């Protein structure tokens, strides 16, 4: 297996403890949980997506664990501005605040709350199951560009998280780049649905949901590959990563780092596990030589 030389990495303006970041919305509702994930080996952590108003989220079932995949429709539950208090114990740590809004102005408003409290912002322009938010905004290149620009006013590095549920993801990636993004995160969940044949209704309370986990890994690798071919800014691969080899594969497709979410269902110690297999002082390769190397 390909292994990497261990060490800090800086991606999209954030100094990370390693290449594996906790993905948004997964164990990111409280400061304590984020701190725990950092202690358990995450190289950085992204918070639950925070929006302009508190939201309770969709009715349950919110999550269905399938064979080789997770499907969720949380509905962006979040405490809004109050969440900033969760970050008090995390000053200086590699924490990235995920934020969302329905308009560039809302993005700007929420972004401001986090100035000075986190290392970067991640714009959730990609949640596939929240009316008027997420992918509803993120499928439109102009909106993506404007939202990015608004968030940049904070002075914080801005990562833009893309939805794979578009005809051409590179168009959206280029829009983020034009807006001044420091990195692209690819991808959020794939729009999906399962139906309980017994109950004759969708398995999730919301009907539609987002697919994550191993099932979408080939889709995420493809998106990273396409973005690497067309964008200049660093890419953070996300979707279905669950092993050190998956991390390497994402990097070879063009990712400078990865985010990991669903894999915590199998084991909350996934970050430590992956690091143990991913890094070798002896025999490890220089990460820079791995990023995008499959494009050669």
């Amino acid at each position, binding site marked *: 297996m390909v292994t990497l030389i261990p060490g800090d990495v800086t991606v999209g303006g954030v100094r990370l403890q390693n290449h594996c970041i906790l993905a948004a919305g997964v164990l990111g509702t409280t400061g304590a949980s984020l701190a725990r994930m950092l202690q358990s080996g995450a190289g950085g952590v992204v918070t639950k997506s925070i929006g302009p108003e508190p939201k309770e*989220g969709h009715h*349950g079932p919110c999550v269905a664990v399938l064979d080789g995949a997770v499907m969720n429709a949380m509905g962006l539950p979040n405490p809004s501005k109050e969440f900033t208090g969760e970050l008090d114990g995390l000053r200086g740590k590699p924490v990235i605040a995920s934020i969302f809004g329905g308009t560039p102005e809302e993005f700007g408003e929420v972004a401001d709350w986090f100035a000075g409290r986190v290392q970067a912002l991640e714009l959730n322009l990609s949640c596939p199951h929240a009316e008027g938010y997420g992918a509803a905004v993120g499928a439109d290149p102009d909106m993506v560009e404007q939202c990015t620009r608004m968030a940049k006013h904070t002075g914080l590095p801005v990562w833009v998280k893309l939805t794979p549920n578009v005809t051409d993801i590179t168009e959206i990636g280029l829009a983020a780049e034009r807006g001044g993004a420091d990195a692209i995160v690819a991808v959020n969940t794939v729009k999906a649905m399962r139906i309980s044949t017994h109950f004759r*209704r969708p398995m999730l309370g919301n009907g539609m949901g987002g697919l994550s986990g191993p099932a979408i890994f080939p889709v995420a690798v493809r998106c990273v590959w396409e973005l690497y071919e067309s964008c200049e800014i660093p890419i953070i691969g996300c979707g279905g990563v669950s092993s050190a080899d998956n991390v390497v594969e994402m990097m070879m497709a063009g990712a400078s780092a990865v985010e990991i979410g669903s894999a915590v269902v199998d084991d909350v110690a996934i970050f430590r596990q992956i690091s143990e297999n991913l890094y070798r002082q002896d025999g490890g390769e220089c990460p820079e030589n791995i990023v995008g190397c499959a494009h050669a």
Partner: protein
Amino acid sequence: MHEIPSVPVTITDIIEESPSIRTFVFSRRFPAEPGHFCMVWVPGTDEIPMGFCAQNAITVQKVGDATETLFTLSRGDEIGIKGPLGNGFSPTGKTLAVGGGVGAVPLRLLATSGAADDFILGARTAADLLYREELSRCTNLQCATDDGTYGHHGFVTDLLRTADPAMYDTICVCGPEVMMKAVLAILIDAGCPEKGQFSLHRYMKCGVGICGSCCIDPTGLRVCRDGPVFTGDILENSELGAYARDASGRRKSF
């Protein structure tokens, strides 16, 4: 990553425990051990966490939307059960169970499995003392009611104080947050918080350890997956009894 299915079950019996508490017996047994819970899918309404009071039953207190819908169901109706979930109790040696209100639910399975020697059961009033007869058959049961309509007039903690925690190897606790906080204080006083195994309730959206809505301060542990049962030493200086987060993640004081 393997499927965690929501298994359709048919309600085969409904036992009215009190006007606002019912036990729903269903058509299928789950390999639940004491302290395990399930996510109950009430189709069209919500999915909510409930302890197993038996391997084929849950006991539900009517408090809101989903529990109200449950109360409209009759024999032959169907719900979905995802579980068993969580870590459960791990009693060793002489074991005391301390339950208050619907907190008695997971302790019933502990008692019927023969793991509880003694049981302290509390409720507001006599009619709310859950599973009283059954528990008296399989444990040495003491009761307390707030209004004195049955057993000790006062709180379970009064009985616990006289019982001497030092006598037990394990003390399994489930009940209202203030009660659990008080029990923990007694155990801390007695110098043995680690003997206490507290089954916590927090807002749960996924039940499988991915969403983070049920995490507690300051450890960040997930009640649904690392819990719901935690030993007292882990809960010392925690949010227990102080606050909990609601569906949106905002803190609400008790």
